[in-house]
Protein backbone atom coordinates (compact mmCIF):
# COMPACT_ATOMS: atom_id res chain seq x y z
CA UNK A 1 0.00 0.00 0.00
CA UNK A 2 1.15 3.50 -0.70
CA UNK A 3 1.85 5.31 2.52
CA UNK A 4 -0.11 8.51 2.72
CA UNK A 5 -0.58 10.73 5.72
CA UNK A 6 -4.13 9.67 6.53
CA UNK A 7 -5.71 6.53 5.11
CA UNK A 8 -9.26 5.40 5.42
CA UNK A 9 -9.50 1.81 4.28
CA UNK A 10 -12.74 0.01 3.45
CA UNK A 11 -14.60 1.90 6.14
CA UNK A 12 -18.05 0.54 6.87
CA UNK A 13 -20.50 1.78 9.49
CA UNK A 14 -24.01 0.49 10.01
CA UNK A 15 -26.67 1.57 12.44
CA UNK A 16 -28.69 -1.61 12.75
CA UNK A 17 -30.14 -2.16 9.30
CA UNK A 18 -29.04 1.22 7.96
CA UNK A 19 -25.66 1.20 6.26
CA UNK A 20 -24.48 4.77 6.76
CA UNK A 21 -21.03 4.32 5.19
CA UNK A 22 -20.31 1.48 2.81
CA UNK A 23 -16.76 0.55 1.90
CA UNK A 24 -15.20 4.01 1.75
CA UNK A 25 -11.47 4.19 1.05
CA UNK A 26 -9.43 7.39 0.91
CA UNK A 27 -5.73 8.19 0.78
CA UNK A 28 -5.03 11.72 1.96
CA UNK A 29 -1.60 13.35 1.65
CA UNK A 30 -0.31 15.69 4.35
CA UNK A 31 -1.59 19.23 4.04
CA UNK A 32 -4.43 18.42 1.69
CA UNK A 33 -7.79 20.15 1.84
CA UNK A 34 -10.21 17.35 1.04
CA UNK A 35 -13.94 17.98 0.94
CA UNK A 36 -16.72 15.45 1.32
CA UNK A 37 -19.54 16.66 -0.88
CA UNK A 38 -22.91 14.99 -1.13
CA UNK A 39 -26.59 15.22 -0.32
CA UNK A 40 -27.79 15.03 3.25
CA UNK A 41 -27.75 11.47 4.60
CA UNK A 42 -25.02 10.30 2.24
CA UNK A 43 -22.60 9.35 5.03
CA UNK A 44 -20.28 12.37 5.08
CA UNK A 45 -20.60 13.12 8.79
CA UNK A 46 -20.43 9.46 9.72
CA UNK A 47 -17.10 9.15 7.90
CA UNK A 48 -15.81 12.26 9.66
CA UNK A 49 -16.96 11.00 13.06
CA UNK A 50 -15.19 7.72 12.40
CA UNK A 51 -11.93 9.66 12.04
CA UNK A 52 -12.76 11.58 15.23
CA UNK A 53 -13.40 8.26 16.97
CA UNK A 54 -16.78 8.83 18.58
CA UNK A 55 -18.49 5.69 17.38
CA UNK A 56 -17.20 2.15 16.95
CA UNK A 57 -16.93 1.51 13.23
CA UNK A 58 -18.37 -1.70 11.80
CA UNK A 59 -15.32 -2.67 9.77
CA UNK A 60 -12.32 -1.20 8.01
CA UNK A 61 -9.32 0.69 9.26
CA UNK A 62 -8.13 4.25 9.71
CA UNK A 63 -4.40 4.98 9.72
CA UNK A 64 -2.55 8.14 10.58
CA UNK A 65 1.07 8.04 9.42
CA UNK A 66 0.78 4.28 8.90
CA UNK A 67 -0.48 3.55 12.40
CA UNK A 68 -4.05 2.47 13.01
CA UNK A 69 -5.87 4.91 15.28
CA UNK A 70 -8.91 2.69 15.84
CA UNK A 71 -7.72 1.71 19.32
CA UNK A 72 -7.08 5.33 20.33
CA UNK A 73 -9.97 6.99 22.24
CA UNK A 74 -11.17 10.31 20.77
CA UNK A 75 -9.60 12.43 23.50
CA UNK A 76 -6.18 10.92 22.78
CA UNK A 77 -6.38 11.19 18.98
CA UNK A 78 -5.24 14.80 19.07
CA UNK A 79 -7.61 15.65 16.22
CA UNK A 80 -9.24 19.05 15.82
CA UNK A 81 -12.88 19.44 14.92
CA UNK A 82 -15.29 22.25 14.12
CA UNK A 83 -18.92 21.18 14.31
CA UNK A 84 -21.99 22.13 12.36
CA UNK A 85 -23.64 23.45 15.49
CA UNK A 86 -22.11 26.06 17.77
CA UNK A 87 -20.05 24.22 20.36
CA UNK A 88 -18.22 26.92 22.31
CA UNK A 89 -18.31 26.24 26.04
CA UNK A 90 -21.02 28.68 27.10
CA UNK A 91 -19.63 29.44 30.57
CA UNK A 92 -16.10 30.24 29.38
CA UNK A 93 -14.84 33.37 27.67
CA UNK A 94 -13.40 33.28 24.16
CA UNK A 95 -9.84 33.14 25.50
CA UNK A 96 -10.75 30.42 28.02
CA UNK A 97 -12.40 28.41 25.27
CA UNK A 98 -9.24 28.48 23.17
CA UNK A 99 -7.15 27.75 26.26
CA UNK A 100 -9.24 24.72 27.27
CA UNK A 101 -7.43 22.07 25.15
CA UNK A 102 -4.08 23.45 26.29
CA UNK A 103 -5.08 23.45 29.98
CA UNK A 104 -6.33 19.87 29.62
CA UNK A 105 -2.88 19.03 28.30
CA UNK A 106 -1.37 20.56 31.41
CA UNK A 107 0.57 23.33 29.71
CA UNK A 108 1.82 26.15 31.90
CA UNK A 109 0.19 29.57 32.09
CA UNK A 110 2.61 31.55 29.95
CA UNK A 111 2.66 28.97 27.16
CA UNK A 112 -1.12 28.85 27.15
CA UNK A 113 -1.45 32.63 27.11
CA UNK A 114 1.01 32.98 24.25
CA UNK A 115 -0.70 30.28 22.19
CA UNK A 116 -4.18 31.71 22.81
CA UNK A 117 -3.02 35.13 21.60
CA UNK A 118 -1.50 33.53 18.51
CA UNK A 119 -4.66 31.63 17.72
CA UNK A 120 -6.97 34.58 18.24
CA UNK A 121 -4.89 36.69 15.94
CA UNK A 122 -4.91 33.85 13.39
CA UNK A 123 -8.71 34.05 13.27
CA UNK A 124 -8.59 37.85 13.66
CA UNK A 125 -10.51 37.97 16.93
CA UNK A 126 -7.82 39.31 19.28
CA UNK A 127 -10.14 42.06 20.48
CA UNK A 128 -12.78 39.56 21.52
CA UNK A 129 -10.71 37.55 24.00
CA UNK A 130 -12.84 38.49 27.00
CA UNK A 131 -16.25 38.17 25.39
CA UNK A 132 -18.61 35.34 26.28
CA UNK A 133 -19.81 33.07 23.46
CA UNK A 134 -23.37 34.39 23.76
CA UNK A 135 -22.06 37.86 22.85
CA UNK A 136 -20.65 36.68 19.51
CA UNK A 137 -22.27 36.35 16.11
CA UNK A 138 -22.52 32.90 14.54
CA UNK A 139 -19.58 33.57 12.25
CA UNK A 140 -17.40 34.75 15.14
CA UNK A 141 -18.35 31.69 17.18
CA UNK A 142 -17.24 29.39 14.39
CA UNK A 143 -13.96 31.27 14.08
CA UNK A 144 -13.33 30.85 17.81
CA UNK A 145 -14.19 27.17 17.43
CA UNK A 146 -11.61 27.02 14.64
CA UNK A 147 -9.01 28.69 16.86
CA UNK A 148 -9.80 26.24 19.66
CA UNK A 149 -9.51 23.26 17.30
CA UNK A 150 -6.15 24.45 15.96
CA UNK A 151 -4.66 25.53 19.29
CA UNK A 152 -3.06 22.16 20.02
CA UNK A 153 -1.60 21.87 16.55
CA UNK A 154 -3.61 18.81 15.48
CA UNK A 155 -2.31 16.80 12.52
CA UNK A 156 -5.83 16.67 11.09
CA UNK A 157 -8.68 19.17 11.29
CA UNK A 158 -12.24 17.96 10.73
CA UNK A 159 -14.97 20.39 9.77
CA UNK A 160 -18.58 19.26 9.57
CA UNK A 161 -20.60 21.84 7.62
CA UNK A 162 -19.22 24.62 9.84
CA UNK A 163 -20.84 27.37 7.79
CA UNK A 164 -24.25 25.88 7.10
CA UNK A 165 -25.95 27.98 9.78
CA UNK A 166 -24.57 31.26 8.42
CA UNK A 167 -25.99 33.52 5.75
CA UNK A 168 -24.50 33.65 2.27
CA UNK A 169 -22.40 36.79 2.65
CA UNK A 170 -20.84 35.71 5.92
CA UNK A 171 -20.21 32.28 4.46
CA UNK A 172 -18.24 33.76 1.58
CA UNK A 173 -16.15 35.81 4.03
CA UNK A 174 -15.32 32.90 6.28
CA UNK A 175 -14.53 30.64 3.32
CA UNK A 176 -11.76 33.06 2.42
CA UNK A 177 -10.57 32.99 6.06
CA UNK A 178 -10.55 29.20 6.08
CA UNK A 179 -8.50 29.09 2.87
CA UNK A 180 -6.01 31.54 4.31
CA UNK A 181 -5.75 29.63 7.58
CA UNK A 182 -5.21 26.39 5.66
CA UNK A 183 -2.40 27.98 3.72
CA UNK A 184 -0.81 29.56 6.81
CA UNK A 185 -0.94 26.47 9.02
CA UNK A 186 -0.60 23.71 6.44
CA UNK A 187 -2.94 21.53 8.48
CA UNK A 188 -4.63 18.61 6.73
CA UNK A 189 -8.33 19.34 6.50
CA UNK A 190 -11.31 17.07 5.97
CA UNK A 191 -14.25 19.31 5.24
CA UNK A 192 -17.90 18.32 4.89
CA UNK A 193 -20.44 20.30 2.91
CA UNK A 194 -23.49 19.78 0.74
CA UNK A 195 -22.81 23.03 -1.12
CA UNK A 196 -20.94 22.39 -4.38
CA UNK A 197 -19.84 26.00 -4.74
CA UNK A 198 -18.24 25.91 -1.29
CA UNK A 199 -16.54 22.62 -2.14
CA UNK A 200 -15.18 23.95 -5.43
CA UNK A 201 -13.95 27.13 -3.81
CA UNK A 202 -12.11 25.58 -0.87
CA UNK A 203 -10.81 22.18 -1.81
CA UNK A 204 -7.71 20.64 -3.29
CA UNK A 205 -9.78 17.55 -3.96
CA UNK A 206 -13.45 16.65 -3.56
CA UNK A 207 -14.92 13.26 -2.72
CA UNK A 208 -18.52 13.03 -3.89
CA UNK A 209 -20.65 10.93 -1.52
CA UNK A 210 -23.89 9.21 -2.40
CA UNK A 211 -25.71 6.51 -0.41
CA UNK A 212 -22.71 5.91 1.85
CA UNK A 213 -20.26 5.44 -1.00
CA UNK A 214 -17.79 7.66 -2.79
CA UNK A 215 -18.96 8.14 -6.36
CA UNK A 216 -15.83 9.94 -7.48
CA UNK A 217 -12.83 11.70 -6.04
CA UNK A 218 -10.77 14.32 -7.82
CA UNK A 219 -10.15 18.01 -8.26
CA UNK A 220 -13.14 20.22 -8.92
CA UNK A 221 -12.12 20.41 -12.54
CA UNK A 222 -11.90 16.61 -12.81
CA UNK A 223 -15.39 16.25 -11.45
CA UNK A 224 -16.82 18.92 -13.68
CA UNK A 225 -15.16 17.93 -16.93
CA UNK A 226 -14.95 14.17 -16.42
CA UNK A 227 -17.81 13.11 -14.17
CA UNK A 228 -17.60 9.38 -13.50
CA UNK A 229 -21.28 8.88 -12.88
CA UNK A 230 -24.52 10.50 -13.75
CA UNK A 231 -24.89 11.44 -10.09
CA UNK A 232 -21.63 13.43 -10.14
CA UNK A 233 -22.57 15.08 -13.42
CA UNK A 234 -25.83 16.18 -11.87
CA UNK A 235 -24.33 17.27 -8.54
CA UNK A 236 -21.40 19.32 -9.85
CA UNK A 237 -22.62 22.06 -12.14
CA UNK A 238 -25.85 22.06 -14.11
CA UNK A 239 -26.64 19.34 -16.59
CA UNK A 240 -29.23 18.30 -19.11
CA UNK A 241 -29.69 14.58 -19.62
CA UNK A 242 -31.09 13.89 -23.07
CA UNK A 243 -33.10 10.72 -23.67
CA UNK A 244 -31.35 8.34 -26.03
CA UNK A 245 -33.20 5.80 -28.22
CA UNK A 246 -30.24 3.63 -29.19
CA UNK A 247 -26.46 3.57 -29.15
CA UNK A 248 -24.24 2.06 -31.79
CA UNK A 249 -20.53 1.52 -32.34
CA UNK A 250 -19.16 1.40 -28.81
CA UNK A 251 -15.43 1.33 -29.38
CA UNK A 252 -12.42 3.49 -28.46
CA UNK A 253 -14.60 5.20 -25.87
CA UNK A 254 -16.63 6.76 -28.67
CA UNK A 255 -20.18 6.03 -29.70
CA UNK A 256 -22.92 7.15 -31.96
CA UNK A 257 -26.35 7.72 -30.47
CA UNK A 258 -29.79 8.01 -31.98
CA UNK A 259 -32.15 10.36 -30.17
CA UNK A 260 -35.90 9.69 -29.94
CA UNK A 261 -36.59 12.07 -32.82
CA UNK A 262 -34.22 10.17 -35.12
CA UNK A 263 -31.31 12.62 -34.87
CA UNK A 264 -27.98 10.80 -35.00
CA UNK A 265 -25.09 12.23 -32.95
CA UNK A 266 -21.58 10.94 -33.59
CA UNK A 267 -18.34 10.95 -31.58
CA UNK A 268 -19.88 10.86 -28.09
CA UNK A 269 -17.82 9.93 -25.04
CA UNK A 270 -18.70 6.59 -23.39
CA UNK A 271 -16.11 6.25 -20.63
CA UNK A 272 -18.56 4.99 -18.13
CA UNK A 273 -20.76 2.57 -19.99
CA UNK A 274 -20.20 -0.72 -18.25
CA UNK A 275 -23.38 -2.28 -17.08
CA UNK A 276 -24.91 -2.93 -20.51
CA UNK A 277 -28.41 -2.15 -19.41
CA UNK A 278 -29.00 -0.88 -22.94
CA UNK A 279 -30.62 2.34 -21.67
CA UNK A 280 -28.67 5.56 -21.95
CA UNK A 281 -28.78 9.25 -21.29
CA UNK A 282 -26.60 11.91 -22.85
CA UNK A 283 -25.17 14.65 -20.62
CA UNK A 284 -25.11 18.14 -22.10
CA UNK A 285 -24.10 21.14 -19.98
CA UNK A 286 -26.42 24.12 -20.58
CA UNK A 287 -23.37 26.30 -21.27
CA UNK A 288 -22.20 24.05 -24.11
CA UNK A 289 -25.37 24.57 -26.14
CA UNK A 290 -25.38 27.25 -28.79
CA UNK A 291 -27.73 28.25 -31.57
CA UNK A 292 -26.54 26.56 -34.80
CA UNK A 293 -27.13 27.16 -38.47
CA UNK A 294 -29.96 25.32 -40.16
CA UNK A 295 -28.59 22.06 -41.61
CA UNK A 296 -25.58 21.79 -39.27
CA UNK A 297 -25.11 19.01 -36.69
CA UNK A 298 -27.34 19.32 -33.66
CA UNK A 299 -30.90 18.91 -32.52
CA UNK A 300 -34.04 20.73 -33.46
CA UNK A 301 -35.79 22.36 -30.52
CA UNK A 302 -38.61 24.76 -29.75
CA UNK A 303 -37.91 27.79 -27.56
CA UNK A 304 -40.26 27.91 -24.58
CA UNK A 305 -38.97 30.77 -22.49
CA UNK A 306 -35.96 33.07 -22.29
CA UNK A 307 -34.79 34.56 -18.98
CA UNK A 308 -32.39 37.47 -18.72
CA UNK A 309 -29.93 37.00 -15.81
CA UNK A 310 -27.60 39.99 -16.16
CA UNK A 311 -24.32 38.73 -17.57
CA UNK A 312 -25.97 35.70 -19.03
CA UNK A 313 -29.33 34.51 -20.15
CA UNK A 314 -30.93 31.12 -19.91
CA UNK A 315 -33.47 29.59 -22.20
CA UNK A 316 -35.92 26.80 -21.56
CA UNK A 317 -36.14 24.62 -24.67
CA UNK A 318 -38.23 21.65 -25.69
CA UNK A 319 -36.90 18.83 -27.85
CA UNK A 320 -38.89 17.19 -30.64
CA UNK A 321 -39.88 14.39 -28.24
CA UNK A 322 -41.10 16.78 -25.59
CA UNK A 323 -38.16 16.82 -23.14
CA UNK A 324 -37.39 20.14 -21.43
CA UNK A 325 -33.72 21.21 -21.47
CA UNK A 326 -31.81 24.33 -20.48
CA UNK A 327 -29.47 26.48 -22.50
CA UNK A 328 -27.26 29.07 -20.87
CA UNK A 329 -25.13 31.64 -22.64
CA UNK A 330 -24.01 35.27 -22.91
CA UNK A 331 -27.03 37.54 -22.95
CA UNK A 332 -26.07 38.94 -26.35
CA UNK A 333 -26.17 35.59 -28.15
CA UNK A 334 -29.64 34.78 -26.89
CA UNK A 335 -31.16 38.15 -27.62
CA UNK A 336 -32.77 37.04 -30.88
CA UNK A 337 -34.69 34.13 -29.35
CA UNK A 338 -38.41 34.32 -28.80
CA UNK A 339 -40.82 31.81 -27.37
CA UNK A 340 -42.41 29.49 -29.95
CA UNK A 341 -39.49 29.71 -32.36
CA UNK A 342 -38.04 26.46 -33.72
CA UNK A 343 -34.25 26.43 -34.12
CA UNK A 344 -31.21 24.17 -34.26
CA UNK A 345 -28.83 23.95 -31.28
CA UNK A 346 -25.45 22.27 -31.43
CA UNK A 347 -22.43 21.61 -29.19
CA UNK A 348 -19.09 19.86 -29.12
CA UNK A 349 -20.25 16.24 -29.07
CA UNK A 350 -16.85 14.95 -27.94
CA UNK A 351 -17.42 16.54 -24.51
CA UNK A 352 -20.85 14.96 -24.19
CA UNK A 353 -20.85 11.90 -21.98
CA UNK A 354 -23.19 8.93 -22.37
CA UNK A 355 -24.36 7.49 -19.04
CA UNK A 356 -26.02 4.14 -18.68
CA UNK A 357 -29.14 4.24 -16.53
Amino acid sequence: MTSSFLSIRNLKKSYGEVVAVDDVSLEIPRGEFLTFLGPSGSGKSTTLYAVAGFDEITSGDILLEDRSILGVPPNRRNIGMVFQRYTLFPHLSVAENVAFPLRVRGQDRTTVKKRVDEMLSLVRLSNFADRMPAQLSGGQQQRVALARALAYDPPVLLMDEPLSALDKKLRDEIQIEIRRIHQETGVTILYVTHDQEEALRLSDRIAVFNHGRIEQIGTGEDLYTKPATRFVAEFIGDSNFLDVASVADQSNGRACATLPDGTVLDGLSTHHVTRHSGRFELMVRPQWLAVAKEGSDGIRITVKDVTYLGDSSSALLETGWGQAIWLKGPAATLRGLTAGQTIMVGWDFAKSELFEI
Partner: protein
Amino acid sequence: MLLNYNQLGRLKYVLLGITGVICLFLLLPVIFIILLSFGSSQWMIFPPPGWTLRWYVELFADPRWFEAAFTSFKLGLMVTVLSVILGFFASYALIRGRFAGRGFLRALFMTPMVMPVVVVAVALYAMFLRVGLSGTWLGFVIAHTILAFPFAVIAISNSLERFDKAIEDAAILCGASHLEAIWRITLPSIRLGLLSAALFSFLASWDEVVVAIFMASPTLQTLPVRIWGALRQDLTPVIAAASSLLVILTLVLMTIAASLQKVLNR
Protein backbone atom coordinates in the same frame (compact mmCIF):
# COMPACT_ATOMS: atom_id res chain seq x y z
CA MET B 1 -56.59 32.30 20.45
CA LEU B 2 -60.16 31.28 21.03
CA LEU B 3 -60.74 33.65 23.93
CA ASN B 4 -59.20 37.07 23.52
CA TYR B 5 -58.97 38.80 26.89
CA ASN B 6 -59.00 42.27 25.37
CA GLN B 7 -62.23 41.61 23.46
CA LEU B 8 -64.21 40.26 26.38
CA GLY B 9 -65.84 43.61 27.23
CA ARG B 10 -67.83 43.46 30.49
CA LEU B 11 -66.94 39.81 30.96
CA LYS B 12 -63.42 40.99 31.62
CA TYR B 13 -64.45 42.36 35.03
CA VAL B 14 -66.20 39.13 35.94
CA LEU B 15 -62.99 37.25 35.13
CA LEU B 16 -60.91 39.71 37.12
CA GLY B 17 -63.31 39.34 40.03
CA ILE B 18 -63.13 35.54 40.01
CA THR B 19 -59.33 35.65 39.79
CA GLY B 20 -59.21 38.04 42.74
CA VAL B 21 -61.45 35.80 44.85
CA ILE B 22 -59.35 32.73 44.07
CA CYS B 23 -56.13 34.58 44.95
CA LEU B 24 -57.65 35.77 48.21
CA PHE B 25 -58.89 32.27 48.99
CA LEU B 26 -55.37 30.92 48.47
CA LEU B 27 -53.63 33.69 50.35
CA LEU B 28 -56.03 34.31 53.23
CA PRO B 29 -54.96 31.40 55.46
CA VAL B 30 -51.33 32.50 55.15
CA ILE B 31 -52.16 36.14 55.88
CA PHE B 32 -54.42 35.02 58.70
CA ILE B 33 -51.65 32.96 60.30
CA ILE B 34 -49.10 35.74 59.98
CA LEU B 35 -51.49 38.26 61.52
CA LEU B 36 -52.36 35.90 64.38
CA SER B 37 -48.67 35.33 65.12
CA PHE B 38 -48.43 39.03 65.99
CA GLY B 39 -51.79 39.12 67.81
CA SER B 40 -51.82 39.62 71.57
CA SER B 41 -54.65 37.16 72.28
CA GLN B 42 -53.66 33.89 73.89
CA TRP B 43 -56.73 32.28 72.27
CA MET B 44 -55.95 33.59 68.81
CA ILE B 45 -59.00 35.80 68.68
CA PHE B 46 -59.51 37.45 65.32
CA PRO B 47 -59.24 40.34 64.76
CA PRO B 48 -56.44 40.52 67.33
CA PRO B 49 -57.22 42.89 70.23
CA GLY B 50 -53.60 44.14 70.19
CA TRP B 51 -50.17 43.47 68.73
CA THR B 52 -47.14 41.77 70.28
CA LEU B 53 -43.87 40.01 69.53
CA ARG B 54 -44.34 37.82 72.58
CA TRP B 55 -44.96 34.59 70.64
CA TYR B 56 -41.78 35.02 68.64
CA VAL B 57 -39.84 35.58 71.84
CA GLU B 58 -41.37 32.41 73.29
CA LEU B 59 -40.64 30.53 70.09
CA PHE B 60 -36.96 31.44 70.13
CA ALA B 61 -36.71 30.79 73.87
CA ASP B 62 -37.93 27.20 73.52
CA PRO B 63 -35.04 24.97 72.44
CA ARG B 64 -37.43 22.30 71.13
CA TRP B 65 -38.63 24.64 68.38
CA PHE B 66 -35.14 25.60 67.46
CA GLU B 67 -34.10 21.97 67.44
CA ALA B 68 -36.96 21.05 65.11
CA ALA B 69 -36.12 23.89 62.74
CA PHE B 70 -32.47 22.89 62.76
CA THR B 71 -33.40 19.26 62.09
CA SER B 72 -35.57 20.35 59.17
CA PHE B 73 -32.75 22.45 57.79
CA LYS B 74 -30.10 19.75 58.15
CA LEU B 75 -32.41 17.16 56.66
CA GLY B 76 -33.26 19.49 53.79
CA LEU B 77 -29.58 20.02 53.00
CA MET B 78 -28.77 16.30 53.04
CA VAL B 79 -31.79 15.52 50.87
CA THR B 80 -30.79 18.32 48.49
CA VAL B 81 -27.26 17.01 48.01
CA LEU B 82 -28.41 13.41 47.50
CA SER B 83 -31.32 14.29 45.28
CA VAL B 84 -29.24 16.54 43.00
CA ILE B 85 -26.45 13.97 42.64
CA LEU B 86 -28.85 11.10 41.94
CA GLY B 87 -31.00 13.36 39.78
CA PHE B 88 -28.01 14.26 37.63
CA PHE B 89 -27.02 10.63 37.07
CA ALA B 90 -30.60 9.66 36.29
CA SER B 91 -31.09 12.62 33.94
CA TYR B 92 -27.82 11.96 32.16
CA ALA B 93 -28.91 8.40 31.48
CA LEU B 94 -32.38 9.50 30.37
CA ILE B 95 -31.18 12.26 28.05
CA ARG B 96 -27.89 10.92 26.72
CA GLY B 97 -28.47 7.19 26.99
CA ARG B 98 -29.59 5.12 24.04
CA PHE B 99 -31.27 2.11 25.57
CA ALA B 100 -34.65 0.45 25.47
CA GLY B 101 -37.15 1.39 28.15
CA ARG B 102 -36.02 4.96 28.67
CA GLY B 103 -39.60 6.24 28.53
CA PHE B 104 -40.66 3.67 31.09
CA LEU B 105 -37.76 4.58 33.36
CA ARG B 106 -38.63 8.24 33.14
CA ALA B 107 -42.23 7.52 34.12
CA LEU B 108 -41.01 5.35 36.98
CA PHE B 109 -38.82 8.20 38.29
CA MET B 110 -41.91 10.41 38.39
CA THR B 111 -44.07 8.05 40.46
CA PRO B 112 -43.20 9.52 43.88
CA MET B 113 -44.67 12.77 42.61
CA VAL B 114 -47.98 11.37 41.42
CA MET B 115 -48.50 8.68 44.04
CA PRO B 116 -50.66 9.76 47.03
CA VAL B 117 -48.16 10.84 49.68
CA VAL B 118 -49.87 8.88 52.40
CA VAL B 119 -49.43 5.67 50.41
CA VAL B 120 -45.73 6.38 50.02
CA ALA B 121 -45.55 7.19 53.73
CA VAL B 122 -47.26 3.99 54.91
CA ALA B 123 -45.26 1.85 52.50
CA LEU B 124 -41.95 3.36 53.59
CA TYR B 125 -42.93 3.11 57.24
CA ALA B 126 -43.78 -0.59 56.92
CA MET B 127 -40.54 -1.29 55.13
CA PHE B 128 -38.36 0.80 57.44
CA LEU B 129 -39.82 -0.93 60.50
CA ARG B 130 -38.70 -4.21 59.01
CA VAL B 131 -35.13 -3.10 58.22
CA GLY B 132 -34.74 -1.00 61.34
CA LEU B 133 -34.63 2.38 59.64
CA SER B 134 -37.74 3.91 61.18
CA GLY B 135 -37.06 6.90 63.38
CA THR B 136 -33.46 7.16 62.18
CA TRP B 137 -31.74 9.97 60.31
CA LEU B 138 -30.88 7.61 57.47
CA GLY B 139 -34.52 6.54 57.10
CA PHE B 140 -35.66 10.16 57.13
CA VAL B 141 -33.10 11.16 54.50
CA ILE B 142 -33.99 8.23 52.25
CA ALA B 143 -37.73 8.89 52.51
CA HIS B 144 -37.45 12.58 51.68
CA THR B 145 -34.93 11.95 48.93
CA ILE B 146 -37.48 9.69 47.27
CA LEU B 147 -39.98 12.55 47.35
CA ALA B 148 -37.47 15.17 46.16
CA PHE B 149 -35.91 13.03 43.41
CA PRO B 150 -38.58 13.59 40.71
CA PHE B 151 -38.22 17.37 41.04
CA ALA B 152 -34.47 17.09 40.58
CA VAL B 153 -34.89 14.82 37.56
CA ILE B 154 -37.31 17.25 35.90
CA ALA B 155 -35.15 20.33 36.47
CA ILE B 156 -31.88 18.67 35.46
CA SER B 157 -33.33 16.78 32.48
CA ASN B 158 -34.73 20.01 31.13
CA SER B 159 -31.44 21.84 31.27
CA LEU B 160 -29.48 18.83 30.02
CA GLU B 161 -31.83 18.53 27.06
CA ARG B 162 -31.09 22.12 26.17
CA PHE B 163 -27.35 21.56 26.44
CA ASP B 164 -26.07 20.34 23.06
CA LYS B 165 -24.23 17.04 23.30
CA ALA B 166 -21.91 18.31 20.56
CA ILE B 167 -20.42 20.72 23.13
CA GLU B 168 -19.43 17.77 25.31
CA ASP B 169 -18.06 16.01 22.21
CA ALA B 170 -16.02 19.10 21.42
CA ALA B 171 -14.51 19.03 24.91
CA ILE B 172 -13.59 15.37 24.45
CA LEU B 173 -11.92 16.05 21.10
CA CYS B 174 -10.05 18.87 22.82
CA GLY B 175 -8.43 16.15 24.91
CA ALA B 176 -10.67 15.91 27.97
CA SER B 177 -11.78 12.48 29.17
CA HIS B 178 -15.51 11.90 29.27
CA LEU B 179 -15.63 12.48 33.04
CA GLU B 180 -13.48 15.57 32.74
CA ALA B 181 -15.78 16.92 30.02
CA ILE B 182 -18.83 16.39 32.23
CA TRP B 183 -17.11 17.92 35.25
CA ARG B 184 -15.51 20.93 33.57
CA ILE B 185 -17.98 21.66 30.78
CA THR B 186 -21.39 20.03 31.20
CA LEU B 187 -21.92 20.64 34.92
CA PRO B 188 -20.92 24.32 34.88
CA SER B 189 -23.04 24.87 31.77
CA ILE B 190 -26.19 23.51 33.41
CA ARG B 191 -25.52 25.09 36.81
CA LEU B 192 -28.80 27.01 36.78
CA GLY B 193 -30.65 23.75 36.28
CA LEU B 194 -28.70 22.18 39.14
CA LEU B 195 -29.46 25.13 41.40
CA SER B 196 -33.12 24.96 40.56
CA ALA B 197 -33.08 21.20 41.23
CA ALA B 198 -31.45 21.93 44.60
CA LEU B 199 -34.08 24.50 45.58
CA PHE B 200 -37.00 22.29 44.65
CA SER B 201 -35.42 19.32 46.41
CA PHE B 202 -34.88 21.35 49.55
CA LEU B 203 -38.46 22.61 49.50
CA ALA B 204 -39.83 19.12 48.88
CA SER B 205 -38.27 18.11 52.19
CA TRP B 206 -38.58 21.38 54.11
CA ASP B 207 -42.37 21.69 54.04
CA GLU B 208 -43.22 17.98 53.90
CA VAL B 209 -45.37 16.71 56.78
CA VAL B 210 -47.10 13.44 55.92
CA VAL B 211 -44.08 11.21 55.34
CA ALA B 212 -42.25 13.12 58.08
CA ILE B 213 -44.90 12.19 60.67
CA PHE B 214 -44.30 8.52 59.88
CA MET B 215 -40.53 8.87 59.93
CA ALA B 216 -40.28 11.00 63.05
CA SER B 217 -39.46 9.80 66.55
CA PRO B 218 -39.81 11.76 69.82
CA THR B 219 -36.13 12.75 69.49
CA LEU B 220 -36.15 13.34 65.75
CA GLN B 221 -38.74 15.87 64.64
CA THR B 222 -38.84 18.30 61.75
CA LEU B 223 -40.48 21.70 62.04
CA PRO B 224 -43.75 20.69 60.30
CA VAL B 225 -43.97 17.60 62.55
CA ARG B 226 -43.36 19.74 65.63
CA ILE B 227 -46.10 22.16 64.53
CA TRP B 228 -48.46 19.27 63.96
CA GLY B 229 -47.64 17.81 67.36
CA ALA B 230 -47.98 21.13 69.17
CA LEU B 231 -51.33 21.75 67.51
CA ARG B 232 -52.71 18.56 68.98
CA GLN B 233 -51.51 19.39 72.49
CA ASP B 234 -52.53 22.97 72.89
CA LEU B 235 -53.48 25.79 70.60
CA THR B 236 -50.94 28.55 71.23
CA PRO B 237 -49.99 31.51 69.02
CA VAL B 238 -46.40 30.23 69.17
CA ILE B 239 -47.52 27.75 66.51
CA ALA B 240 -48.65 30.63 64.36
CA ALA B 241 -45.24 32.24 64.78
CA ALA B 242 -43.42 29.02 63.83
CA SER B 243 -45.74 28.54 60.85
CA SER B 244 -45.10 32.09 59.71
CA LEU B 245 -41.35 31.54 59.68
CA LEU B 246 -41.82 28.28 57.78
CA VAL B 247 -44.01 29.98 55.20
CA ILE B 248 -41.63 32.87 54.75
CA LEU B 249 -38.56 30.73 54.09
CA THR B 250 -40.64 28.65 51.68
CA LEU B 251 -41.82 31.77 49.87
CA VAL B 252 -38.30 33.12 49.55
CA LEU B 253 -36.99 29.85 48.11
CA MET B 254 -39.99 29.52 45.78
CA THR B 255 -39.39 33.01 44.44
CA ILE B 256 -35.75 32.23 43.77
CA ALA B 257 -36.70 28.95 42.08
CA ALA B 258 -39.35 30.63 39.95
CA SER B 259 -37.00 33.36 38.74
CA LEU B 260 -34.38 30.70 37.99
CA GLN B 261 -36.92 28.90 35.84
CA LYS B 262 -37.57 32.15 34.03
CA VAL B 263 -33.87 32.62 33.28
CA LEU B 264 -33.63 29.01 32.15
CA ASN B 265 -36.56 29.30 29.80
CA ARG B 266 -35.17 32.35 28.06
